[in-house]
């Protein structure tokens, strides 16, 4: 079992990894798009990700989810990554980070 500091550090590493997962339609990473709601590491081998999509109808939604799992596993091969896709609260443009707004050209 890891210490709370180690858990925090791994969670922040995961946030950084997810910055490399791009939504191919808007070409902005999913963290700055505000699609990631929660990253929780249990201190053992499981990471829980709570995330959404900009629209439930997103035709490439499962490619994005797969990308999240694979991106984390590439850095932490032993981890089990559970992605929980939620649409409540629904994503809204207010969730885009300042950096994301710059990337979107806003």
């Amino acid at each position: 079992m890891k210490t709370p500091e180690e858990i925090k550090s791994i969670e922040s590493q995961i946030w950084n990894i997810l910055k490399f997962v791009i939504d191919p339609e808007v070409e902005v990473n999913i963290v700055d798009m505000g699609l990631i709601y929660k990253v929780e590491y249990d201190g053992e081998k499981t990471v829980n990700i709570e995330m959404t999509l900009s629209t439930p109808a997103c035709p490439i939604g499962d490619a994005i989810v797969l990308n999240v799992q694979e991106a984390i596993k590439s850095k932490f091969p032993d981890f089990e990554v559970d992605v929980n896709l939620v649409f409540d609260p629904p994503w809204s443009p207010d969730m885009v980070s300042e950096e994301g707004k710059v990337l979107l050209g806003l």
Partner: protein
Amino acid sequence: MQGLATDNAPSPGVVVPHFIFASISFIVVVVLMLLSATSFTGFFFEPHLLAITHTAVLGWGTMIIFGALYQLIPVIFETALYSERLAKATFWTFGAGVVMMVYTFWNNEFSTLLVYSASLTFIALMMFLFNIVASTRRATKKTFLSHFITTATYWLGLTAFLALLIALNYKFSFFSQSHLLYLKMHAHMGMAGWFLLLVMGAAATLIPMFLVSHQMNENKLKFAFYFVNAGLLLLELDWLFLHGTVMIPVWGLLIAAGIVFFISYVAESYKKRLRRNLDVGMKHTMIAVLAMLLPVILGLTASVSGLNFKPEILWKIIMLYGFSIIFFFITSIILGQTYKTIPFIIWLVKYKSFVGKTKTPLPKDLYSEKIADIQLYFYIASIPVFIAGIIAGSEIIFETGAVLLLITAVLYNINVFKIVFHKSRIENENT
């Protein structure tokens, strides 16, 4: 993973052939146009015009919509297509029907072949209708947008049914009125009932999704739906039972009001968009939406009998009316939305299993953006040339427009085939 549209996505083998058939049809349409420019500058209804129109609306427009709709049904209804085998059978039946029908019209074989080609096409469209209705019946999610799709499909069925009656009438002559009245009914069912409602429903889903616009006023879509349907129904009933009264422009105005509500919805999405830069697909789409205003104005003008236009002026207005619906509105939206659908379909097939593991190209890397841009410019250039050619009644101007559109069609085909036959770059690296 629950609730994902891709869980229910059809296999690409169902969707992709529609895009191939349609892209080739687009080239055929323009070649036929070049061979028969007089059909557009003359003053009477003739078989070549029917051949070109049906290649465009069936082989190009409807065929690609079928393919796109099979992909879109899981997105809108959150259910899989009822039967992929039926969809494949529909493709072959419909394709054969369209080829035969175009041959029939082009070679003026009305009394011999028309009944058979119309029957074959009718059967194909009924197969499609059954597949769509059966799919929507088991939909887990029904939004207002789904009404656009189902209602458009019913209008398509009616359009095909009336077409079959018109074809039978050539053989057995049972209509009480001139067949031109029924042709008018048939054309409007097809244009406003099938294409307009379908495009509105699909675009209302796709445009806000691609522009990333939120908090949209959905009431505008409800008004659009009810106005177009009410106007069209009254228009058809007026023609059927009263053979065209002075109220025709009023019914036309109802349809126009529906279109204005839809345009206002798109404008709202454009204003609220998070994605600032429009790619070539969205530029084409926006041209199509703006182009809707042209047939609205022309159609309303032509419908007011009190204006007493000279026959040749009225014919030009009607010609431009039909032409702008097919070649400005329908064609532009298809040219645009192709770039928003088929690259994603192929990208998912080729790269889904590689995402996150290795660097994959983006869907837009599957086609040449440069070719798409040039295609857009040639397309835009063709619009005023066609309008001038039809107004001036000049073959040479019209043919110039057709050459510009032919270049558009060839460039479009290059990109479509580039996407369809894309070889995975990752596999290449491995081998």
